[in-house]
């Protein structure tokens, strides 16, 4: 069931009052295509009930829509008005059902990374797949692969990897080893930004765009990714493989709310599989 936004957004008559947290939340949702309510709560640093109230205000302002698209809580995505308010040139679309699991996994990865102290200390920046695609403007080549996200580490920070750009891939399902290896090679040999002239995408002799590729894998996908890394030889030294964080997978039918793992809000540390944060009630404001 979809909860539609008002036909004429309230913004036209009286602009919605948004605080800093609202703006950060709206930008996050816009960049990730769509986010499930528990993950929105993690972004906002609140409980689900409060997040529900906040997102309801976004809907009233005409900035967002929400609906139960699959298992688990409702999904939230921005409307055309919301994207315009954020100044983001993305087409307004409902998250595709076939991509829900992947979207949730990527959002979990981003939340886990942004929760790490090293990430915040370095002031790193997550550049989402949606931003990359928008730069391409529909010019995505047939065999051109776009990572699920990029992490940019600013220069001049204490991090040893300052100035680097990482490609992040969330792998839920198994591909063939050959395909995975081809994607790894493509990511690690690319030299140009996404959206650059085709001739600059891969220039021999130029430094690579991505210093490393970070693969976050489900248990099913991990063996294939590991074999693919081995198959690409010396390039494999620049591939990091980790498990997907807890709560990255869509909740299975039959699990009660209390049994669902909760994503960790930024700044509160990671939540790992098997940790005590999968308990029934997280901190509430």
């Amino acid at each position, binding site marked *: 069931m979809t909860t539609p936004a008002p036909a004429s957004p309230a913004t036209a008559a009286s602009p919605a009052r948004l605080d800093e947290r609202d703006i950060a939340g709206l930008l996050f949702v816009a960049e990730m295509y769509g986010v499930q309510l528990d993950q929105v709560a993690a972004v906002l640093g609140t409980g689900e009930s409060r997040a529900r109230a906040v997102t309801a205000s976004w809907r009233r302002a005409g900035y967002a829509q929400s609906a139960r698209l699959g298992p688990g809580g409702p999904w939230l995505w921005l409307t055309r008005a919301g994207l315009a308010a954020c100044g983001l040139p993305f087409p307004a679309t409902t998250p595709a059902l076939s991509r829900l699991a992947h979207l949730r996994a990527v959002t979990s*990865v981003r939340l886990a990374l942004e929760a*790490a102290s*090293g990430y915040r200390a370095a002031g790193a920046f997550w550049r989402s797949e949606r931003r990359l695609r928008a730069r391409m403007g529909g010019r995505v*080549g047939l065999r051109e692969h776009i990572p699920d996200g990029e992490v940019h580490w600013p220069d001049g920070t204490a991090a040893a990897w300052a100035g680097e750009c990482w490609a992040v891939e969330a792998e839920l399902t198994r591909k063939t080893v050959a395909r995975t290896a081809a994607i790894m090679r493509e990511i690690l*040999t690319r030299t140009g930004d996404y*959206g650059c002239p085709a*001739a600059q995408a891969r220039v021999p002799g130029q430094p690579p765009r991505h210093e490393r590729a970070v693969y976050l894998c489900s248990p099913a996908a991990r063996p294939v990714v590991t074999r693919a890394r081995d198959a690409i030889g010396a390039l494999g030294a620049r591939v990091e493989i980790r498990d997907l*964080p807890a709560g990255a997978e869509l909740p299975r039918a039959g699990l009660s709310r209390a049994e669902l793992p909760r994503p960790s809000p930024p700044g509160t540390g990671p939540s790992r599989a098997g940790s005590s944060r999968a308990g029934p009630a997280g901190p509430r404001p």
Partner: protein
Amino acid sequence: MTRRRRRRPLLLAAGRVLAWAAGVAAGAALAVAAAPVTLVAAFAFALAWATGWAPRRLYQAALWCVPMLAAWAAAIALAARSWLPVAAAPYLAWLAMWHLAAAGSVLLAALTIAPVAVPLGLLAGALAWSRRVYAMRTGTGGLSPTASAAFDRRQWRHQVRSARARIAAPGAVPLLSRGGGIVAGAIIRTVGHTASPLAAIPYQRLRSHQVVIGTTGTGKTTLLLRLWAGFLALGLRRHAAGAGHRPLLVVLDCKGGADSRRVADRARRVLRAAGARSTAIWPDEASLSLWALPARQLTTTLVDMIEHGTGGAAYYADVLEAVVALAVGPPCGPPASAADFLARLDPGWLTAAYASAPDGKDAALLRSASRHISDIALRFRTLFRRLGEGLDGPGGFGDADAWYCILEGTSQIAVAEAQARALVDILASYITHGPGGQREILLAVDEFSAVSRRLPIWQLYERARSLGLAVQVSAQSWPGLAPRDDDRYRIAAAADGGIWLLRTPHPDPATALAGHRRSADTARRVAGVALWRHEGSSRMRDEPVADPSIIRSLDTGQAAYIYRGGVTFIQIKRLVAAPPALAAEPITADQASAGPATAAHAPIPPPGTEPHTGSLPDAGALLDEAFGNKTS
């Protein structure tokens, strides 16, 4: 002659004048008495004249007023609790209108009589406009015989002005109509087709063959982009609804050069807005594999890509085919690439490959043709060098929703012909032997004249329907459709999805396919210098449905759509594409002919040769904090 006889004509003339004056006075009195109806009728007539509307539109407007009239009558009946006062209601409203007008309440008077006056006025205006149009069409109206031609020219200008105003209004011309058609633009005029404000082409017409003819700069590309975007948008919608297979658009742009690349970029943005997930630009950014063809088809295609003569040269053509067949069909399987194929064009290789053949026929053939093999290898080496790497794979038509294939037909005609032949064969094979049977495919061949000499598209044209393939051929002129007149007529006659004509100097063969219609031709008696009587005779004659003179004088962005004995003149609505993601330097023809070995096709360096070889700082602690310990 008696005085009585002399006075008789004068009396008759006076009587006629009196009768005319009485008629005029009665008409004027009636017009004044029914002033509201007269005003509405005059307004409707003037509006139809100024906008070039067909009378049908006024009749429809009058029909749309019927609910208002019914509500008004029902309100009177409910107020009086009887239907009897409804009969007298128009008369009473008319009386009340005059009383209110006399009292100075003009607006209230207008509101009182409006439920009756508006529909009646529209009907009267429609009748008068219909009468006027008919009189001018049959030549019975106007002061002179040329009045009907002047009236038609004036009405064309009015109709064009209305159509331009309609397409200029934001949102007035969507890409798809609510009825499930592809809206090409606003209708200027129709002959034999139903008149409506917008020209919506049903999807099935684009699933049939079409022909587009128009010289450069007439808006042909604008029309084609709109049709392609509409085909994809509607096809994807139908596919999502389970009403059809997924659509696939394949465009062969046979002009080439920088202009084609600009069009390709625009097409990609337009098609993306229409819902296409990916548009492949061949050969600049994507490639196809000629070597995925079945062995027998591959042999035919390779042979046809090489130009060979007739007469005495036919012998060498046979030798060529025999050698190619040997290279393509050895026991070890067909070649996988151009380099593989060229390596096989060697007597030693072929001898070794067929050494184990049981019957020895191939070995005998090989012996007789062996002295030509090096020449054949030279010809193919030259061909593949000129073709570039666009046909050397990997890739297939199933990889994208739309393929825009750029053939250098202007600068390298022979290469473009060979490429066109190969691409069509790959597409046909994709349909017959691959998953293309599960796609709804539109093959659009733009600037067909560049490759029409060696691309036997009419053969594909005639059997394409059973393959689920629709072919849309566009050319700058009628002769550009095919080298021979028979083939031109064959292509045009098989275009059961319609023929689009933009401005072209010789539209007659195409307009003749629209046929003729019966119309009245009226002769007028001459009364003197520049004076004609309203007396004469009419006869029926045939006139072309699609007037070639109108098509010769069409403005940029105007098209005539001929379909089933009717024609619709359309002002094409230009599709506005999203701005390019990056203002990149366009790829030149030279760069393109160098093959797709740039960008996405750059060879991936083998492991260990990548430029970045320095050791990276260890980020394990951060990743451990975020995602847990390393797993492998």
